Each structure stands twice: as C-alpha cells, then as structure tokens.
C-alpha cells in the first residue's frame, strides 16, 4: 500500500490530475487539535468511567502516571475549550461581521435543511437497492450530524465537566441533585462520543470503501478532481456553473505531508480503536 500511494501521489501531481481545496489550513489545524485532545480526554477519562475494569488501573498508570490522570484530563479539556471558543468566534465573525454568505443557511452551510432529509432517505433507499445513489453537496447529512454531535457534545460534556470541577461555584445556581446529574450526563455523553467517533465516524469517513483506509483530505486539505466529482457531485456542478471551481484549485500535496498525515492519522485511528475495544470490554464487563 505505501508504495502504491507513493507512486500515486507523485505521478498524479506531475500529470493531469487537478486538486481542489476542501479545507483551509485553519480548519485542518482545528481538526488536529480536536482529535488530539479528544484522544487525550478519552484515554484519561475512560479509566475513570470504567474504574472497576481490569484495564483501568493499568491505563491510568500508562496515561497519567501516579495521580496525574485528572490533571491531564483537565489540561486537555482546557485546550479543547479554547479551540471550541475560537471556532465559535470564527463562525460568528464570518457570518455576522463579514456577512459571508452560506454560513448559516444554504448549500455550503453546516445547518441541516430539507435536502439533507431527502438525501438521507435516498441514501438509505440506495443501501437497500430501492433507488439511485443520491448526490451530495459540500456537507453531506452524516457530516453535518458529525459536526453537530461534536458541537452539542462539547457543550454538554464541557458544561457538566466544569460543573464538577468547580462544584462549589456551580452549586450557587444549580440544585443539589444536579451535582449528581452532571456526572451521569458527563460520562454517558462522553461514552456516546467515544463509541460514535471510534466506530461510526471512523468507518463513515475513513474506513468505508470510498475512502479506505483513510480520507486524507482533512490532513492535506485538498482532494483530486476525480474524488471531488465522485463524492460531492452537486458541489462540483454548482462551482463549475458559478465559475468558482477555478478559485478552489489547490496544489498537489507534497509527499512529506502525505506520509506525515498517514503516520498521524493511522496512529489516531489505532489509539481510537484500542480505546473502543477497552470501552466495550469495560461496558460489558
């Protein structure tokens, strides 16, 4: 595989293959920060969630050493909170200050619309052989779900986490039983996030046959002409029509970036799948 990919990358760049930008550098960095802190939070949080499981103490020792596991959990939480706030600021700035079109509504927006519902039904009909494969816009419905799941998850997990961290402060305006509830909310929502990301997001985005073994676009920022047309024909057609396609042209990803991305990506997937196995063991233990 690596040799094949290597040939791919070099020959494609030197011949006719065109590349289009899907994610900006900032968006890619944001994803990197997101998955790094998420892995860190999961690795330090799961031993607490499944503290009675046989692997809990070993993993805790492995990721935190003596007594540091809670410190690291809080550290990753702060980094992720900052990333989250920067993202919200960017979105609001682009939408409200710069008046950029398509942030809050339309074909390039993350906000779900009627077409997404239709695409979802159509997609599932295609799964069952009941209809043609639907065509997708810039963000497909499962990608929007991923986005909002993480968005909602960060608010819920973040709030409940800070409520536990600063419990005496939050107690000023939360009822007593809420202090019990925040742990349930925090751990259940985090469990959902872990199970979702490490199984469904991994497969939907990276491991499914269309992208197997990894969708590189989130690391390199660009994808090939062919991939663009196949995966999101509606967005391709729209850009072609409006003449914006040219503006999206990017350069072929340098070989070092491809290889570096693979190392990072595979590592992340490997850690994620390991944690998924431990989670399932802990859950059914």
């Amino acid at each position: 595989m690596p040799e094949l990919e290597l040939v791919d990358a070099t020959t494609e760049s030197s011949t006719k293959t065109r590349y289009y930008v899907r994610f900006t550098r900032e968006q890619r960095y944001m994803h990197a920060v997101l998955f790094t802190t998420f892995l860190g939070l999961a690795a330090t949080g799961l031993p607490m969630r499944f503290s009675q499981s046989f692997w809990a103490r070993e993993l805790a020792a492995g990721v935190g050493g003596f007594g540091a596991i809670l410190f690291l959990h809080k550290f990753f939480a702060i980094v992720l909170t900052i990333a989250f706030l920067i993202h919200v600021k960017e979105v609001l700035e682009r939408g409200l200050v710069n008046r950029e079109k398509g942030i809050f509504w339309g074909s390039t927006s993350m906000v779900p619309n009627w077409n997404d519902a239709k695409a979802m039904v159509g997609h599932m009909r295609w799964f069952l052989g009941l209809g043609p494969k639907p065509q997708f816009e810039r963000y497909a419905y499962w990608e929007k779900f991923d986005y909002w799941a993480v968005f909602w998850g960060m608010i819920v997990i973040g709030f409940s986490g800070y409520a536990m961290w600063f419990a005496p402060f939050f107690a000023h305006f939360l009822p007593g039983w809420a202090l019990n509830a925040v742990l349930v909310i925090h751990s259940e929502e985090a469990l959902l996030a872990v199970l979702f990301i490490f199984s469904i997001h991994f497969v939907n985005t990276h491991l499914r046959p269309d992208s197997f073994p990894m969708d590189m676009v989130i690391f390199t920022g660009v994808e090939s002409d062919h991939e663009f047309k196949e995966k999101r024909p509606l967005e391709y057609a729209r850009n072609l029509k409006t003449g914006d396609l040219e503006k999206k042209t990017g350069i072929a990803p340098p070989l070092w970036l491809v290889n570096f991305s693979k190392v990072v990506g595979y590592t992340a997937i490997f850690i994620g799948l390991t944690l998924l196995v431990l989670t399932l063991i802990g859950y059914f233990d």
Partner: protein
Amino acid sequence: MKEAAEKTVDSDQWPVVRKIRNSEQGSRIGVRIALVVLSVAVLAPAPRTLSAQDCLTCHGDASMTDSAGHSSIAVDGKKFGDSIHGSLQCTNCHADIKGYPHPDKIAPVDCKSCHADEAAQLKGSVHADSKEHPCTSCHGNAHEIFPKTDARSQVYPLNVPKTCGQCHGNNGMAGKHGLPSVYPNYIDSIHGFALSKEGLLVAANCQSCHGSHHILSRTDPQSPTYKANIPKTCGNCHAKIDTDYEQGVHGKAVARGNLNAPVCSDCHTAHAILQPTESEFRMQSTPICGNCHKEKFSTYRDTFHSQLGSLGGYVETARCWDCHQAHDVRPAGDPSSPINKANLIVTCGRCHAGANLSFVRYQPHANARDRKLNPGLYFVRLFMNLLLASVLTFFLLHTILWLVRSRYQQVKTKNGNGGKHA
C-alpha cells in the same frame, strides 16, 4: 561470674523459692534449693559447688552426644552460668541423676516443678498438646534461658515474633496443621515495622494480643482475640480509639452481642495491619465496609469519589470513613455525626473549599436507578441512555448497510482495486 551469681541470688532467686514453696510437690525441692541459695548467699564469695563443675567436665565438651549419637548433650558452662538458671545446680532440674554412671532411663526435665503457674496456664492453651517440649520451643535452649527483659532472650519483646514465627511462618508447624502463615503478614505490618525497624519495645508483638502461656483460640470467648474482646485487646494500647469505637454504632452493636458488626481486625486485619493513611490501606478498605453495606457501596461506586479513587493515583478522594468517621461512626440523625445535616458543610469542606448549603445537597450515595429516591437523576439517566441507544442503533445500522452497499457497488462495477472512489 561471682557478681552475677550474687545478683541472681539477690534479685531473682527469692520469687522462685516462693513459687516452689507454693507449689504442691515443690516443698522438698524447695527446701533443698533454699539451702543451696542460702549457702551461696551466706558463704559468698564461696566457690561454685563442685557438682556443676563435675557435670561440666564431661558435658562441657561441645561435641558430646547421647549414647545413640543423635542429639547433643553438651552444655556451654559459660552461657549457663550467665543464664537465669545459672545459680542452680544441674541436679535441681535433672533430679533423677545422682551420680555417675547415670541411670539407663533419664526422665525429661519437668519445668513445672518450679514454674507451676505457667505450666497450669499452658495446660489449658492451644499449645497444650504440643509434642515438642512446650517450654523450650519458645524459651530456647534449656541451659541458655534469659529473663524476658534481656535482649538475649527468645521471648524478649523484639525477639517474640521471630520465635513464634518459627512455627507460625511459611514452613513451620502452622503449615502442617493448616493454620495461616501469619509471621510474614505481621512482620510487614505497622507493628512489625515499629518492632523490627525502630526497635520499639512497646510495639505490639504476638503476645501483646495473644498472651503468652495461656493462648486460647479466637473462637474461645475467654480469648483476648475472641471477636467481642478485640476492641479491649487493641484498646490496651489504642485507648482513645477504643473509647471512640465504643461510642460508635459498631462498638455499641458488638457490646449488645451482635458479632456481625466489625471490630478492629475486620477493617485493619489482624496481622497485616497497615498505616491507615497509606494509599494501600485507603485502596483496600472501602470494599471491606462494602461487605456489609452492599447498597451503599454500590451507589458509592457510581460516584466520582470512587471512580477516581479506584485508580490508585488520587488516594485522597473520599472513602467511607472520611465522611463517616472511622471509629466513632454515628447515624446521620445523631447531631454529633459528621454526616448530620448541620455538620455537612464542615465535613464536605474538609476537601471542598467553599462548600456551601447547596453544594452539600449533593448525594454521595445517589442511586440513578431509583425513581422514587432520586427522580431527577433517574430521568436524566433515562434520557441519556435513550439518546445513546437511539443514536448508536441508527448509525450502526446505517453504517453496516452503507458498507455492504458500497462494497457491492465496487465489485459490480469492477472498481474494487483498493477501494478508492467507488
């Protein structure tokens, strides 16, 4: 040598004489010993009587064995002279030997002819039917016995555990009789360390709790290690803790005769007692409370206190006794209980700086599965579980169908070379 003899006479001999006189058969021997003692005392510095020297002319040879050649019958005259019995004559104990040649059959030395009280105590004890010589097993070589205040004595406080451990260790008699090997537990305990590392004479050794001659099984209500007697036994040293304990629910229950209630050794163990502030103890003891308080333990397990505390690193997270007290455990209704509503701010505030009235309404034993007791928590958990189940079920099906369909498409369109862009 002479000084030693005099000293022995002055300080140690008279009680022995008294004891012998009090015993039933001792009177005849007693008179004889009294005469010996008197002669030593009055005639000092008279030379030692010849008979001991006589015996030692043969038995002083360190290589001397019995006629069968099996066991040594040598006596170190110097050590014997230093020993607590050094002023006695050989024939005081070996009474059936009058001269040489010795009789064919020689009776074993009977210590009880002098030490009648100890012998009587031993008779009722767990060691009564010992096949080994019951006295020398603990006190050591009969000719080299020192008072228990002498560091050379096998029953000197610092030597007691090793002496008992000869049998109650891994390879001793205890193994043969199916008794637990307690010596290794003890020697690594806080008492064992105090004794072996600090040399604390007051550190509890075996006989501090079990007694010496009159050791009884812990199933015997007279035994200091009988469950109901343990608080008093430990209280001999730990007086304040015993007082606290007696006032708590467990102490009161035991006093009422409820032997299901825990005594000291249930939480601290009997021999492997750890420093209670040590992480190892803090890690191991919460489940001990859970042996009886099953429901409370289960709900504690659901809390952050337990989740983090179980990992070993953060040992300071609240364990049972951090909130309930270790010894003076009282029900929440008792105004002096640390978990009484009026005291919660102080109790929680010991760890949680800034604990306020609303904060202490947190329930350290909330049960999210109990709708009546914790309705808010119950519905939060229900909602979260439904969310989890529905999202995962939907997307699992979605993903599996998608995978199957994509692969099918690839194979059908013969585009399945590695799977890109099917």
